[in-house]
């Protein structure tokens, strides 16, 4: 799958290693970037709100991609890690009135510490058992928040935040927050590319493919697995911090096991083992989600005899069905199919 377009040759290592290899790739990236910058001008407030959620989810899903897609450690507690980030950011922002550019990274650090503890369990267990342990993270998070004194995390009332502000400018509106989130997300995605292309990223993939063999190459498997959780949870924490500032209200119900499963669904649909895949997965799943929730009322209005309840239930079934279809027919994700299409285009007119 490493086929380059015809006529592209590399004359030195740095060109060979470059992420973006051709002029057209630069061009399409630039067009995509400009499009992202113009989103608040092109679309209405509803779309911008959806875009904001997508960007926040993207940060979290990219983190999960590193833990699960690259390092192969199944993680069903990503929403809990996100919640830890959101609560930490919310707490330091309300109690100590720290600015967002300190509280969001603090949220990331707290989530990373929380994730690291669960990552240590990955040292001894794999697969299903590990998945169960990460579900425990979800419940520990839930119990801890609800049962700790209300003065700490607000208990079941949650936390309410002031909007993020920088030099007196408040990111109050959806479109202003969009740019803040976009910048942070871009930084995180670039960081993710950096991580997966570094020696640590290669160690992640080596451990995913064969942990015994990778220990034979001098990779410390224990540390690698735990740090995969650390990195993934850090991304989740940053996403959680963003979420706290966007919604300006943090409560445990926003970070349930259900959300964690959605994150896993996103990287499955996008394609595991690919950062771009995670982004595509987020976009697609959120898009389907939004379509379903906006079509629902229309359908129940147009056909009142069906009844609203049935329509809404059916919508959830459709959403679940989409995931099932993906797992059955495209288990390697869209990025895999895309790479095959790219290759077959490049070797055209030959079939293989």
């Amino acid at each position: 799958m490493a086929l380059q377009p015809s006529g592209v040759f590399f004359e030195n290592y740095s060109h060979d290693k470059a992420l973006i290899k051709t002029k057209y790739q630069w061009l399409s990236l630039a067009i995509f970037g400009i499009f992202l910058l113009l989103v608040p001008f092109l679309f209405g407030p509803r779309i911008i709100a959806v875009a904001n959620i997508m960007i926040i989810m993207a940060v979290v899903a990219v983190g999960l991609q590193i833990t699960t897609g690259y390092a192969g450690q199944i993680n069903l507690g990503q929403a809990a890690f996100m919640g830890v980030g959101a609560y930490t950011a919310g707490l330091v922002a309300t109690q100590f009135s720290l600015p967002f550019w300190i509280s969001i990274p603090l949220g990331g650090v707290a989530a990373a510490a929380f994730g690291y503890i669960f990552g240590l369990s990955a040292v001894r267990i794999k697969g299903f058992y590990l998945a169960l342990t990460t579900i425990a993270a979800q419940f520990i998070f839930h119990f801890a928040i609800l049962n700790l004194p209300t003065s700490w995390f607000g208990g079941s009332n949650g936390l309410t935040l002031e909007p993020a502000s920088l030099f007196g400018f408040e990111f109050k509106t959806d479109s202003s927050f969009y740019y803040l989130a976009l910048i942070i997300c871009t930084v995180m995605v670039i960081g993710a590319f950096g991580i997966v292309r570094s020696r640590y990223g290669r160690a992640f993939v080596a451990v995913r493919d064969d942990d015994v063999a990778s220990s034979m190459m001098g990779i410390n498997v224990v540390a690698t697995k735990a740090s995969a959780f650390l990195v993934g949870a850090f991304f989740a924490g940053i996403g959680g911090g963003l979420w706290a500032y966007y919604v300006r209200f943090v409560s445990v119900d926003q970070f349930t096991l259900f959300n964690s499963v959605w994150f896993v669904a996103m990287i499955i649909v996008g394609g595991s083992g690919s950062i771009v895949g995670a982004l595509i997965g987020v976009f697609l799943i959120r898009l389907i989600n939004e379509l379903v929730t906006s079509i629902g009322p229309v359908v129940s209005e147009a056909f009142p005899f069906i009844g609203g309840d049935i329509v809404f239930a059916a919508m959830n079934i459709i959403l679940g069905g989409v995931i099932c279809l993906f797992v059955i027919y495209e288990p390697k994700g869209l990025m895999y199919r895309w790479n095959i299409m790219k290759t077959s285009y490049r070797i055209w007119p030959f079939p293989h």
Partner: protein
Amino acid sequence: MLLKVNNVEVIYNDVILVLKGVNMTMEEGSCIALLGANGAGKTTTLAAISGIIKSEDGKVTSGSIEFDGQRVDNQSVESNVARGLIHVMEGRKVLQHMTVEKNLIVGGHVLKSGAEVKQRIENVYTLIPRLAELRKRTAGYLSGGEQQMLVIGRALMANPRLILIDEPSLGLAPLMVEEVFKILKELRKSGISLFIVEQNTQAALEVADYGYVMENGRIVMDGEADQLMKNEDVREFYLGLNMEGERKSYRDVKHYKRRKRWLG
């Protein structure tokens, strides 16, 4: 003395005794072959030396293994790799989703600088030119022989002093086996010590200068490689040759009198 295995006993899961007092020694720059039937404990011996025995719930319960004067039994695999003790496992464990070159880069995980990694990759390519041709190919799609070359090349990346190779000829066509053993001979010339575990006794004894034969968790026979080749027991049981040096026919098997005396 590069490697000294002293009366080693290995127990799996606290109940299964596999090695019952194994002794062997090895000089720097030499090559030894460990031979024996299935289940004799050859792979366990290798795993005990390299340390991966831990991941299989095994433990060295008595005796000692010294590498270059330091105790390495029950040490972590990573620390042994850092000492230059590399294990090439049986079954060609390539990282299948990575390209050949990426596999080599990961093999150099213990190296400190990128320049060193590049230089060692060039080294590997000159030693095994086939890998240079395949450098952009995905490792999982290579043929068995090519994968075997890749794992040997990957072991070379970590600056090894002793490479433990488990069954390099497993499942390979005779021509490929020749190719792989040619590479092993090259390695010997470059001064790396080799410890080969093989079923293909003939090929292994041709490369090695000393051989050990294992049976039921014990060393039952050892000697210079050419002496072992001439030994009648070895010829009978491991080379499949009878006294006249001809391959046995089924009729001969029926009249076959020789038995493994060491089994008592």
